[in-house]
């Protein structure tokens, strides 16, 4: 799919490693921006942009062209800020129960008060504060899951791509086996083995997501290996580890970064789903999926306890997916999502 990702001569010079001077890369970017502004629209730019100093500006100029991606980024950054400053922003404690205000509707409805802007849940906890603290969990889940899945997946993929032969076959068969199970089902069963908790849910989701990184990395490695710059690095005497991590890996990053964005949102969705089924974060954790599970019996009585946590999940996931689409277009226009 990314076969046509041919780097221009100047780009592959930059990709050959840290020897390519910083100035050379800068002029490269400069000339591209000139052609871009003169051409007006984006037509077949030699994009092989990995995020790195000097390339970043070029990447950014493509990224901001996509309005949706920018909106996604802004919303996502807002979520991160909310997660960071949850303690200051939340008007109440997320677990304190106000016994005098059970299932109180939001402030603008009859019976609502300013004290609880979005109302309270069945045991009198402030919904807004729980949602704000929930941002922490969802961000935490996304980061940890992606870090575990991506780092292990990239390592295994590199090994498969470099080793070839029976090691490669064995690894790819194992990945096929993992991919044969629907992801949520496998995560569900793993949690049944490990025991229901947020950490176990995150481990399970990371294991389920990791084969995608293996496949992507291996495919990218196989595509890069026959290139001249790899051969020349080999001739110069680069060891296998240097070849893997310094020479080849930086040139395989584009699809991996896109996958990271996509699996960030999948992780949040799946963790929420497990929480909803009672197999993820356990009450009274203000995790959005777990909050929805608690609210199920009030579906027809208190719409707010059901609606708001779901909106939080949806908006968060949507923002990340918008960003992922923008990343994909900016990093590698040839890469298409199926």
């Amino acid at each position, binding site marked *: 799919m990314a076969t046509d990702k041919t780097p221009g001569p100047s780009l592959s010079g930059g990709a050959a490693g840290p020897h390519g001077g910083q100035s050379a890369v800068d002029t490269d970017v400069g000339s591209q921006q000139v052609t871009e502004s003169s051409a007006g629209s984006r037509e077949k730019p030699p994009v092989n942009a990995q995020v790195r100093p000097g390339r970043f500006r070029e990447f950014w100029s493509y990224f901001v062209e996509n309005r*949706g991606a920018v909106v996604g980024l802004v919303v996502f950054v807002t979520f991160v800020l909310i997660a960071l400053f949850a303690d200051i922003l939340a008007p109440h404690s997320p677990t304190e129960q106000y016994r005098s205000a059970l299932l109180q509707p939001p402030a603008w409805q009859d019976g609502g008060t300013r004290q609880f802007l979005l109302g309270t849940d069945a045991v009198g906890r402030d919904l807004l504060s729980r949602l704000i603290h929930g941002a922490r969990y969802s961000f935490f889940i996304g980061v940890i899951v992606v870090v575990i899945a991506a780092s292990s997946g990239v390592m295994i993929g590199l090994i498969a791509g470099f080793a070839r032969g029976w090691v490669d076959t064995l690894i790819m068969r194992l990945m096929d086996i993992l991919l044969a199970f629907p992801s949520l089902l496998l995560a*569900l069963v793993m949690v049944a083995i490990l025991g229901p908790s947020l950490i176990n849910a995150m481990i399970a989701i990371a294991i389920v997501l990791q084969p995608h990184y293996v496949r992507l990395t291996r495919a990218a490695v196989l595509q890069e290996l026959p290139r001249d710059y790899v051969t020349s690095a080999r001739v110069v005497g680069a060891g296998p580890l240097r070849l893997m991590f310094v020479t080849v890996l930086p040139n395989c990053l584009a699809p991996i970064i896109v996958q990271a964005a996509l699996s960030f949102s999948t992780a949040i969705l799946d963790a929420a789903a497990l929480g909803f*089924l009672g197999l993820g974060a356990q009450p009274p954790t203000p995790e959005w999926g777990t909050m929805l599970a608690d*609210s199920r019996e009030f*579906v*027809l009585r208190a719409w707010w306890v059901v609606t708001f946590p779901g909106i939080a999940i949806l908006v968060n996931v949507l923002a990340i*997916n918008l960003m992922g689409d923008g990343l994909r277009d900016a990093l590698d226009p040839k890469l298409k999502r*199926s």
Partner: protein
Amino acid sequence: MLSFMLRRLGTFIPTFIGVSIVSFLFIRLLPGDPILLMAGERGMSDERYAQLMTQFGFDKPLLTQYWDYITGILRGDLGISFKTKRPVWDEFFALFPATLELSLCAIVFAVLLGIPSGIIAAVNRGKWPDQMLMSTALVGYSMPIFWWALLLIILFSGLLGWTPVSGRISLMYFFPTESGFMLIDSLRSGQSGAFASAVQHLILPTIVLGTIPLAVIARQTRSAMLEVLSEDYVRTARAKGLSPLRVNGLHALRNALIPVITVIGLSVGTLMAGAILTETIFSWPGIGKWMVEGIGSRDYTAVQGGLLMIAVIVMVVNLVVDVLYGLINPKIRR
């Protein structure tokens, strides 16, 4: 073509063995003694324990256990459910039609809406119908479907009172299940209103389960159409003066549908995962709800059987899709 099919089958068998090992190990990986775990707090007498050990074969060496397990599978024996004491195989196939019916309705819903949406978006590339449809598709793709289900229940069952909240058919109707498909059985029963009731019960679960496949199909159709529309033969067809409907609908769509068919086939996994959530919320008596309940009630033999069967179903469908794809598109056979 034959060698392509044989090669594809050659990867199927090792994967199947791998999947059977995973589901075999599942019970053995549980922390603690599986029999005591399944017995729960009540515990049991030593005699009963020894009897169960032999019955489940846990006293034999691991390799023998696996051999018994896989030969059992090939004979259609998935063990005995710990809770109901009935064969897991029978339980699975008693519930499977409910999941199949729901999944088929969901995929029909997704295809009927998704393909036209994708075409409309592609033909109007960059204009408002495209932007509107694709934004909606992205929302659908990002949807936490368990919340979507609750929202639809609030709206259609709570506020409007149009649809029931749970089950497959109203309790007023009773008839023997023959095919296991409620739509067919209710029609055959001849009771007036039974079919309408079955349809009413299907609407919300269908929408919920079909949402993500719908979004995926719409996006895929759009990008496949865009690719095909820029091909020379489409330009030629236009230049010949054929009507846009003929060009888009006949010439372009036929080739654009090839990748879409693959996506439809591959969404079986999504449907099975979605069924777990959808069936739990709507109390739909299918495989998904059965699996979640199995985990809740520590009926690990049932969970093990379900895990294996679902993986096998997904693998078989993927195999069929791949072979079909090879039939339609000779390029892939290499």
